């Protein structure tokens, strides 16, 4: 039995290719929900153990009527969010491992449609990750907002953009799963720690405090804290979000210059 010629002629109007690819990316994420649950569960565990320490740190910094969630929720969200860049990268690398990359490239989906269709769901995933942790932070750890909400929103959108562009950069420069694992995980934990994600910046060694502003996680934690703690101006939010967008653009530009669609990455998945 073959497809009818009627069906071939009248196809009900095609969806844009990027939409088709994005829907497939969502399906693939849903089929791997366990790892997403893990990514959300890990920061929640550490929030529980570190909340008390964070409260003391905030009180020492002059904040009153705080419970520590003001540090651990944004900090852990950013710290473990850094691991999402590996997740973003594997959204592409999976296609190589499954042998579907060339099929995809030979379809009507253009290169741009493939990239957009892969990155938009990844971006949405990162935003949902932040939302889930903040909502759980409110419900489980008593998180309240006393700062600039717009700073929180802007940073909350700019940080995922940064993660997504770092993820595509990882795909562009790495040739194997193993490389992505190493760079993603070691890089993720390094960035998470250095940016003040796991413990407050004031508790880090002085050398780390000096280089922390060179990391996107530093600006993400700072921007999110500006939406939670009092005493920050709205311009802090703009600066933090602006720096994150700048880093995202830089990563994206480098990725665009290095990404080779025809590269087979044959050893990936081996």
């Amino acid at each position, binding site marked *: *039995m*073959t*497809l*009818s010629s009627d069906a071939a002629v009248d196809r009900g109007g095609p969806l844009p290719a990027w939409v088709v690819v994005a829907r497939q990316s969502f399906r*693939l994420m849903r089929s791997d929900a366990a790892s997403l649950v893990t990514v959300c569960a890990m920061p929640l565990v550490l929030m529980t153990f570190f909340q008390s320490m964070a409260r003391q740190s905030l009180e020492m910094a002059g904040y009153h009527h705080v419970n520590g969630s003001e540090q651990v929720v944004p900090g852990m969200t950013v710290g473990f969010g850094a691991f999402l860049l590996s997740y973003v990268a594997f959204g592409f690398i999976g296609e190589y491992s*499954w042998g579907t990359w060339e*099929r995809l*490239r030979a*379809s*009507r989906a253009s290169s741009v449609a493939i990239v957009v269709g892969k990155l938009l769901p990844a971006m949405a995933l990162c935003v949902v990750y932040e939302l889930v942790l903040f909502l759980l932070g409110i419900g489980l750890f008593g998180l309240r907002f006393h700062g600039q909400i717009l700073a929180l929103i802007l940073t909350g959108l700019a940080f995922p953009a940064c993660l997504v562009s770092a993820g595509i950069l990882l795909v562009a420069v790495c040739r194997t799963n193993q490389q992505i694992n190493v760079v993603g995980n070691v890089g993720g934990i390094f960035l998470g720690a250095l940016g003040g994600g796991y413990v407050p910046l004031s508790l880090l060694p002085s050398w780390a405090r000096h280089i922390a502003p060179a990391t996107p996680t530093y600006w993400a934690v700072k921007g999110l804290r500006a939406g939670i703690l009092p005493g920050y101006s709205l311009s802090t939010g703009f600066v933090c979000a602006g720096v994150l967008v700048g880093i995202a653009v830089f990563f994206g530009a480098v990725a665009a210059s290095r990404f080779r669609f025809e590269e087979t990455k044959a050893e990936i998945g081996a």
Partner: protein
Amino acid sequence: MLEIAGLQKSYGPAMAVDSVDLAVGRGQILGLLGPNGAGKTTLVCIVAGLRKADAGTVTVAGIDALRYPGRVRPLLGIAPQELGLYPTLSVRVNLGFFGELAGYRGQHLYRSVLQAAEAVGLADRLDDRAAVLSGGQKRRLHTAMALIGHPPLLLLDEPTAGADVETRAQLLDLVASRAADGTAVVYSTHYLPEVEQLRAEVVIIDRGRIRASGPLDTLVARYQSSRLELTLSAPMPTAMAERFGAEGGDGRVSIATTQPEADAAEILAGLPGTVTGLSIVRPSLESVYLEVLGRPAATVPQ
């Protein structure tokens, strides 16, 4: 449907495709044969826009495929050599995704998925994850994903590699039926009997160059002659032996001939003794293939 002229592609100093010219019309199957590393996959990938050519032209339905790969891609379905499917997703979703990419939606998509699954015998596995299918079923799903858009040009790169006998027969039937519907098919394979079964036009490629091409029968006739193998109770008369160019002795004689039936009849009528055995050994595509590639020729008795 597909025309290739002067196509060249090298990887460093190695020529993967060297001055290749070929054409495939609607409803035609082109059997692309050659040893590993001959350039078959590179050729298929260039047509599909997956590799860039160094020189030459590729035209699909009148469109310059090298200059406008985006316009050509909707016209072709490709099943690469390596299995390409989403193991964690169902057969339905695997087919549906490429159906959507081919432009189907709604009821058309639903019907197309069902029809493609039926065509490869997977209609009862639509809701199973691809990961749990057997090797043969995965191979069939892999091929069905190339067919679902009903593309006018099919590029099948070793579609039966690793497939069992039943799967192979099913896939060959499917390819033949698609060709009968007017689809142009480029069929790369190592299994020569498949090309014979499909009655395909043959292109033998080695080290990037086409070594031989043409219709199967023409190619066989051009490169190899049949042989008459006779077992005789008495020696063949010298005049007859010289006339037919007979070789051998001790009652066993071998004669190369382009008209085995006629020669056999004439020899049988003129022999003084009894013929205790007679067989016509016809050349096969395999013997042509080996001769073209410079390997010792072999023949298959019939």
